Structure formats: C-alpha cells, structure tokens
C-alpha cells in the first residue's frame, strides 16, 4: 500500500482546511466559468440544445465561414471597434481634463458637492439611464425644448444613423467621465505639495502649474490607464447599446455583444452566435495579454 511521507501527513494535518476553504468557489468557477469555456466547442457544431455540447454534430469551420461571408458580422466588428475606441479616448481625455480642473478647486464643500453630482449616474443601471434618456430625448422633452429655444431643427438622436454613435459616446461620458477622474485625482493628491510651492515662488501661474507639474505628475497613471484600456477595445458596452438601440440604427450601432445576443438567444442560431462570441473572446484575450505586458513594462503594473 502507498503510504504518505510523514512530512506530508504533518502538512496535511495542519493545512487541510485551506483546501476545504477553496473548494466551494473552485467548484463554482469550474461550473460557471470553465464549463462554458469548454462549451465554446459549440462554435464548431450545429448545436442542438437537446444533444448538448457533447453530442451535437460537428461542422468544422462552417459557422465561421458563414459569419465572415455575411455582410453583417464585419460591420458589427467595425461598429464595436469604432464605438469602443471613441468611448475610451473621449472618456480618458475628459477624465484627465476634469481631474486637472477639480484639483485647482480649493473650496472643499463646493468640490465635494459637484463631485457628488458627477458621480451619481455611475451608480445607476443603463436601464434607468436609458429610461431617463428616452424621456429627455422624446419630442417636447428637455433636449427638444432646448433645441427649439436656440432655433434648430429637432434631431431624432436614437433613431438616426448619423446621431446614434455621438449620442452613445456623449451619454457614456455622462455616466462614466466623472467617475473616471477619481484615479487621476488620487494621483494628483499624491504629488508632493513642495513642487507647487516652489513653482509659486518662481512665479508660475495656474496654467504653468498644471502644464509643468500636474500633467507630468500624472503621466505614469495616464500611460497605465491607456495601456490597460487596450484590452477593452472590443467592449462596445452591451448594457448601454442594448437599452438605447433599435433596428433603425443597427447599421451604425450594432456591436458584437448585441449581435451575439440576437443571433443566439432570439434567433436560436446557437453555433453561429457562439462562433462570434469565440472570435471576441480570443481577440480580447490576446489584447488583454498585450496590454498587461505593456502596463508591466512601462508602468510597473502587476495584477497580483
């Protein structure tokens, strides 16, 4: 009979509880994360829910050929890249800009109050924000009245392929730009006040302080955030798009995630939808790895 070494027995006697503590979550992750990863085999199947991952017939690359030959999928990938990149770039620039301005505000209660207003939308779901937006963008809604007041034609923001993307980008700023500045404000607070005092003695004005001290001071944070956002350029933002779009704007607003949802769960084209999902997961994975490598190299970032 195989016998455990006494050292191993002592180790287990002392530490068996550690394994037991890990077990429940590990099991959950195997079921709800790793099993679905295995389930990606359905991208190569003509998937039949009755037969499951193991017995559905194989179709090789058939689903991918259909995806790439359809006019829809390339368009959807394009929309995703455009919307996600525009959101990342505008979001970060606005967040940096806001942080620099807030950092110059000395009246603490005023700063806190306005921060509270700007952070608020971050805590609300896109269902709530979508409901509010549909209301203010409705005919005779808040925005419509504003347009009337300054004498321009009312625009149907959510029903026009010209206006859908700008609306998505701006409403994303509404929800996240205030929140996004927190990380830059933290970096600014960490800067040595002596730098600012010395600059003041040398006669630097506000603009010079921002330009020569604040911006260089948060540059490492800017580089880090920029590197990490690379992993997000396939994230068009399902919650936002799904609660704002409609068939009229599929041409400019449909993204990979909404496409996967409609193909898979509405039209029951499971294999095709899973293939589109696999495409996104694989490219997204590679992008995240590259972004972590860059973040590690240029900003010394480590996840754990």
């Amino acid at each position, binding site marked *: 009979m195989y016998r455990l070494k006494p050292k191993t027995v002592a180790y287990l006697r002392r530490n068996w509880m*550690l394994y037991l503590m890990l077990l429940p979550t590990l099991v959950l*992750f195997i079921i709800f994360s790793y099993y679905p990863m295995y389930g*990606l085999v359905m991208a190569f199947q003509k998937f039949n829910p009755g037969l499951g991952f193991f017995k559905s017939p194989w179709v090789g690359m058939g689903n991918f050929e259909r995806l790439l030959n359809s006019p829809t999928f390339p368009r959807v990938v394009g929309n995703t890249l455009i919307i996600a990149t525009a959101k990342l770039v505008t979001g970060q620039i606005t967040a940096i800009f806001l942080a620099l301005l807030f950092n*110059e505000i000395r009246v603490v209660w005023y700063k806190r109050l306005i921060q509270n*207003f700007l952070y608020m939308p971050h805590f609300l*779901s896109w269902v709530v924000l979508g409901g509010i937006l549909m209301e203010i963008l409705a005919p005779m809604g808040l925005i419509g009245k504003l347009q009337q007041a300054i004498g321009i034609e009312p625009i149907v923001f959510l029903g026009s392929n010209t206006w859908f993307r700008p609306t998505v980008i701006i409403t994303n700023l509404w929800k996240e730009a205030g929140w996004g500045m927190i990380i830059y404000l933290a970096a600014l607070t960490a800067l040595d006040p002596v730098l600012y005092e010395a600059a003041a003695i040398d006669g630097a004005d506000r603009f010079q302080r921002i330009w020569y001290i604040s911006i260089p001071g948060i540059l490492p944070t800017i580089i880090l955030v920029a590197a990490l956002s690379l992993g997000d350029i396939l994230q068009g933002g399902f919650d936002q798009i799904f609660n704002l779009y409609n068939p009229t704007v599929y041409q400019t607003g449909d993204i990979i995630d909404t496409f996967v949802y409609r193909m898979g*769960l509405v039209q029951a084209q499971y294999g095709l939808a899973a293939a589109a999902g696999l495409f996104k997961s694989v490219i997204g994975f590679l992008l995240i790895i590259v972004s972590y490598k860059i973040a590690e190299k240029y900003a010394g970032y480590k996840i754990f």
Partner: protein
Amino acid sequence: MIREKDRRNALFDVFNYAFIGVLGFVALAPMLNLFAISFSDNSAVMGGYVTFWPVNFTLENYAVIFKSPAIYRAFSVTVQRTVLGVVISQFLTIITAYPLAKSAREFKGRNIFVWLFVFTMLFEGGLIPFFMVIRSLGLLNTIWALIVPGVSAWSVILLMNFFKEVPQELEEAAVLDGANHWQILWKIYVPLSIPALATLTLFAAVWHWNAWFDGMIFMTDPNNYPLQTYLRTVVIDLNSSALQMDVRQIDALSQRALRGAMIFVTTIPIMILYPFLQRYFVTGIKLGAVKG
C-alpha cells in the same frame, strides 16, 4: 509682473468654478427633469411644460405605481437576490481569499489556484455557452440562476491582496495559542479587513440591485423578473400592460409621467445609500486600481 499673474489666476478661478458648476448641473439636469415630470400631471407633461419644477403637482403617478402588484413582486425578487447573492458571494470570497493569500510554500498549489481564478478574468466562454450551462443545470426560471454564478474573481483577487498585508506576527501568535486556520481567518483577518469588505459588499449589492440582463434571459416567466428587468419592460420596451393595471386608469395618466415615477421608485435605495456608496466606492477604486 506679479499683478498680471494674480489677475490671470483670478480669471482662471472664476472660469473654473463656473465651468465645474455648469458641468455639475448638466449631469444632474436629466434626473431633475424626470423627477419634476414624475410629480406632474398628464396635460403638463404632454404639452412639454415641465422643466425642473412640477407643473400641476400631483402624487397620482406614484399612487398608481404603488397599487400595481407587479412592482411589489419584482421588488421582492430583487431584495431576495440582493440579500442572498451578497451574503453568499461575500462569504465565499472571504474563505477563498484566505488560502490564496498564503505563500506558495505555506499552501502548496497556491500559484496554480490563483491562476485558475485570474484566467477567468482574461478569457470567457461568453453568453451562449453560459446560457446553455445554466439551462442544462435546470436553473432557468429559478432565483439561483441570478445568485450562484455571482462570485467575482476580481473581488477574490482584491481581497487576497488585502489579506496579504495582515501582519504575520499576529497570525504566528494565534497559532501558538492553538488557533486553526478557520479561527485565524474570522478572528484576525476579517476584523482587520472591514474597510475592504465593506467596499466589496457595497459593490456586490449595487451590482445585484442594478442587474437586469440575467433576469431577462434566465427568467422565462415575467412574474419572476427582478426589479430592473421589470423596469426595462416598462420604460425601454414601453410595455404598459406589464404594469397590470386597469387600462382606463393608465389612459387617465401621462404614461411618460408614470414611467418617470417608476424610474425613481426603483432608484430610491441607491439614492438612500448614495453617501456611503460614494465614499466606499472611491476607496475601492483606489484599492483596486492604484497599485505599482
């Protein structure tokens, strides 16, 4: 010149304070507008007379909503999923982060386990296979579909990093007193990590409160929809029959005002918790993001 510089700085301040104030107002304006609409009557809303103050003030919109049985049902589903979901996921996060916070020498296999969790943050099976798994486990239309997958690898890693900062001497002293791992976790690690745990708990609570998509795809019976999913059928799909009210009653009211009131009712708990949320979420951002 010194004078010239002071003038430029003063000018900058005036513009800065004003600009920030305007931004704050713009961010809040849509909410204020809808809030005013929710207290206004039909004719005023349809005529577009409501801006930031109710016109023909009425509580009727709220009265109608509180008479609808559907909203109580949805509210109760959300409360259940939030309470159960937060308690279970926080408990599991704590007992998972503890062994992972040990060194690979103390806990053999630790690095492999950490990677198993981290990998799920990098790669995912995606929506369709996930849905099929939930379905094949028979979880469709049960509240467990909204709860069990809820442990977040991100929270586990964050808490693990926090646990690593717990002073070793405390733990060694406890071991000498004969404490086992379970006791060390609950008597030393957890009390020392209250700020981090409070942050993670609030994150999880807001996540559960705001979640709507899982309810929409996993609940085949709309009577089991959580609040946000239910809200979506009313304010996004514009399905007033979901309110389950007398048609004449709805006609008498502005549906827009009704939707406004509905949105605010579902948001009340977030608004009440907002001061805490804000503070702890900011802490969370700093814990999670600003390292290295």
